Structure formats: structure tokens, C-alpha cells
């Protein structure tokens, strides 16, 4: 499998000279679902924004496909922690937006947006405005918008952190269903060990300040993942393994 995303010895300092991440290296192969796990403030979002090309590294290299991330040679989508919908536009036009920006005609963009909405079960809410939707529905719209361009790289920044647990579990399953259809390279930022293990094929554990990679753990669970898995012995075992890696990061932080 070809390398889709490569971060080589990346450092990011902000204007106040505080380093958010330091010496961060990772390679992600095409079509892989990777979870980026760590405590708040360890630079997970910064890593995601670097991959998206929304930030530039102060040292090191971030490549997506053949080019550096900032050149955006590869179709990427980003799902924020908030649904980040345009309140003045209805659901259909919100989902059609990335295609419209890409120069697709209004009619074609709307047709594709309708398909994307059908895939998240919101076909009948096309004409609703974001204020008329629940938090879970808004997030589904946000995911439909991210997938409407059929991106090669899908970046998700704690998209379900603000939702209740039942909705979160359901959206986790829906996201996996969507992912298995399009198979983009997915990077999912979360601070939930269970979510990371349930969703991904590989967990990158971050920790420390400035943030660095402290563990790179493969997840070996049968696909497709089903809700029954949450009580499965091997799922819980791997959750423990990831939790221990996270704890080790903390203790190392203390001893340093």
C-alpha cells in the first residue's frame, strides 16, 4: 500500500514561541483508518491542521500524496468538533458547498448532495435549516458534506465529543459504514480510548507538552465492526493496552 500522509520530524511553534508539537513523525498508508488519541492540549488538533495544510510546520515536512500538505494536491475533507454549518443555507446547500466551490454546477452539486444526505439518513430534511436540527443531525450533515466530494483523505477533529453517548455510538457505526464504502484515508482525533479502538485499525497515542508521538499501536479486530464488539473480550483487552500506553505517556511527562 502506498503512503498517503507523511509527517517527518515535524515541529510547530505558534507566534508566542510555545511549541505545540515537536519531533513528530508518522506515516499513514492509503485507505487506513487511524485514530489520533491523547489528552487535551497535547497537539492533536495541530497535527490534523498541519495535514490539512491549514497550518505550516515551523520545522520538518508534512506531505499528503506526492506534494507538501499546503499545496493540496489531494482531495481532503475536514470535520470539525462543531457541525460548522452555514446557518443561512438549508441542509442541501450546506452539503453541496464543497462541490460548488470546486466549480460543479448548482444542479449537479445538489444531486450529489442529495445522495450524500440519503447515505446519512437525512434525505427528507434537505430543506430544513441547521437551527431546526438536533445536534446529532447537524453532525450527520457535516459528515455528508465531508464525504460529498469523495475525498482521498478524511480528517475528523473530535466530531462526536459534544454528543450524548447513545448518539455517539450510533454515529460511530454510521461513520464506519460510510468509510467502508468510499475507503478514504481517515485520521480521527479523539480523547476517548473506546472510540479510538472501536473505529480504527491503528491508534497513534500522543502525549506530553510539547506533544509528541508516544505509541503506535495496531488494532486487530474483525471487520465490519458491530455494536456487539463493545463487550467483546479482545476489544476490551486492546482498550486496556491503549489506556496503558496513554498512562505511560503521563508518567513520562512527570519524570521528565
Amino acid at each position, binding site marked *: 500500500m502506498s503512503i498517503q500522509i507523511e509527517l517527518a520530524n515535524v515541529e510547530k511553534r505558534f507566534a508566542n514561541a510555545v511549541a505545540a508539537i515537536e519531533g513528530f513523525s508518522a506515516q499513514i498508508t492509503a485507505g487506513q483508518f487511524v485514530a489520533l488519541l491523547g489528552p487535551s492540549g497535547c497537539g492533536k488538533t495541530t497535527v490534523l491542521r498541519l495535514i490539512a495544510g491549514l497550518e505550516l510546520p515551523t520545522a520538518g515536512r508534512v506531505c499528503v500524496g506526492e506534494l507538501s500538505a499546503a499545496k493540496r494536491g489531494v482531495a481532503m475533507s475536514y470535520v470539525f468538533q462543531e457541525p*460548522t454549518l452555514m446557518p*443561512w443555507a438549508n441542509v442541501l446547500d450546506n452539503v453541496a458547498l464543497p462541490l460548488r466551490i470546486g466549480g460543479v454546477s448548482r444542479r449537479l452539486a445538489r444531486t450529489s448532495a442529495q445522495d450524500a444526505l440519503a447515505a446519512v439518513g437525512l434525505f427528507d430534511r434537505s430543506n430544513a435549516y441547521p437551527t431546526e436540527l438536533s445536534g446529532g443531525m447537524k453532525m450527520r450533515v457535516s459528515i455528508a458534506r465531508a464525504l460529498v466530494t469523495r475525498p482521498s483523505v478524511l480528517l475528523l477533529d473530535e466530531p462526536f465529543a459534544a454528543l450524548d453517548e447513545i448518539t455517539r455510538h450510533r454515529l460511530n457505526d454510521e461513520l464506519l459504514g460510510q468509510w467502508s464504502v468510499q475507503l478514504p484515508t481517515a485520521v480521527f482525533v479523539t480523547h476517548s480510548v473506546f472510540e479510538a479502538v472501536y473505529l480504527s485499525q491503528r491508534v497513534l497515542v500522543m502525549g506530553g507538552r510539547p506533544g509528541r508521538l508516544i505509541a503506535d499501536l495496531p488494532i486487530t479486530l474483525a471487520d465490519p465492526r458491530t455494536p456487539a464488539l463493545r463487550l467483546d473480550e479482545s476489544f476490551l483487552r486492546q482498550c486496556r493496552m491503549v489506556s496503558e500506553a496513554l498512562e505511560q505517556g503521563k508518567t513520562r511527562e512527570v519524570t521528565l
Partner: protein
Amino acid sequence: MIAPRRAHIWVPGVAAIGLLIAWELVVRLRGIPPFILPAPTLILTTLWNNLDSLLASWLFTIKITFGALLLALVGGVFLACAFALSRTLELALFPLAIALQVTPIVAIAPLILIYVESTTASLLICAFIVAFFPILSNTLVGLRSADTNLQDLFTLYGASRWQRLRWLLGPSALPYLVAGLKISGGLALIGAVVAEFAAGAAGRETGLASRILEASFRTEIPKMYAALTLVVLTGVAIFLAARVFSHLLLGRWHPSEQSSN
């Protein structure tokens, strides 16, 4: 307390009618002469008797007011967009806009009247100067307050400047623009009336301010009130129109319009 249905219509209506009845009663019972304070019924009959001249003046004032408001809307929005796209342009021209805003219109009006030949045009310019600043500054703030995540999204998908302006910055600025328009609507009327006072114009092509001036020279107090009534009605109508406009543009999605119903 729970407000009854349609309270927002009949409560102010009843209050206004009550106030007018009280006014009428005070004037009649205390025998106040009409050259000091005319009763509402006398103002109404004066309005009726002078309807032809007052209506023509009213139309003229409305023409100036809405002409100036339209110019302010177009000019204010255009300048705000230009400022939002170019920081240099804003640095160069914004102080000028502020200078124009803080100078009292009665102080500039005589100069404009000298430089501009047509009285109608100079009145239009004066009313425009008063009305355009709230639209400019509000729209500019609105264009700058687009959601940062949405901004990032537009960057990620490689949006052009024009796409960003049309699909993100413009709609984000709309609630601010409407708020500016509500202020500017009233200011345009004030500008139109004040400029006409400064011009001291007489003749056929003149507005309500000239009628008020004329009546005051002849101490026709009821006629002053009659003209003033039309000015007030115009102002209230502009305010209500701005409310309807705001509801049409923002009613479906903006929080400012969600709570009022």
C-alpha cells in the same frame, strides 16, 4: 407574566390612542389656544385642508430620504466589501469616512449647497452623508466576523476570493447590514429634513421641512404640527419597513429574529 396574543400590536396601539385622547381633553378642558398647543383633531383638520401642498412636500421628502438611503446602502456595502478585501484601502479611506461622519451635517450643508447647483442633488448628498456610515461600519464588522472554522473550510476547498465573499462573508454580514440599515433609515430622514432646513429652500420642489419653516414664519402652529405628523409617520413607516425587511432576510435562520415571535 404571560403576554396575550398579538399584544405587540394592540398594546402600543391602545397606548397611542389613549395619549391622543388625553391630549385632546387637556387642550379642550383647560382652553389652551391653538397657537400654543393645537388639539389632535385640529391638527387632523389642518392636515386635511392643506392636503395638496403637504402631500407634494411629503412626496419630495420621501424621495430624498429613500434616494439617500439607497445610495447609502449601495455605497456603504460597496466600500465595506472593498475595505474587507484590501486593508490598504481601508487604512487610506476609513479615517475620511469617520471625519465625514463626525462633522455635523448643518456645518457642511451650506458648502454643499454652494458647490452643487441642483438643490435636490445637494439635499440628496447631505442625507446620504448622514445615512451611509452605520451601513459601512456595520457591514465591515459583519464581513470580518465570519466563523473561523467555515473560513478554514473555504480555504481547504480552495475557494476563490469571490466565492468566499459571496457564499461566506456576505451572508455572515447580513445581520449586521440589517442592523445598520435600521439606524440609517431613521438617519436618512433626519438628514433629508435637516439639510432642507439648512438650505432654507422655498418654491415648488421642496419638502416637509420647508412647510414647517413657512408655517413657523407665519406662526401657523397647527400647520407646523400637521407637517411634523407626516415626518413622524414617515419615520415610523421606515422603522416598520426595516423590521419587515429584516424578518424576510433573517427570519429563517438568525437568532435575532427567532425570539421575537
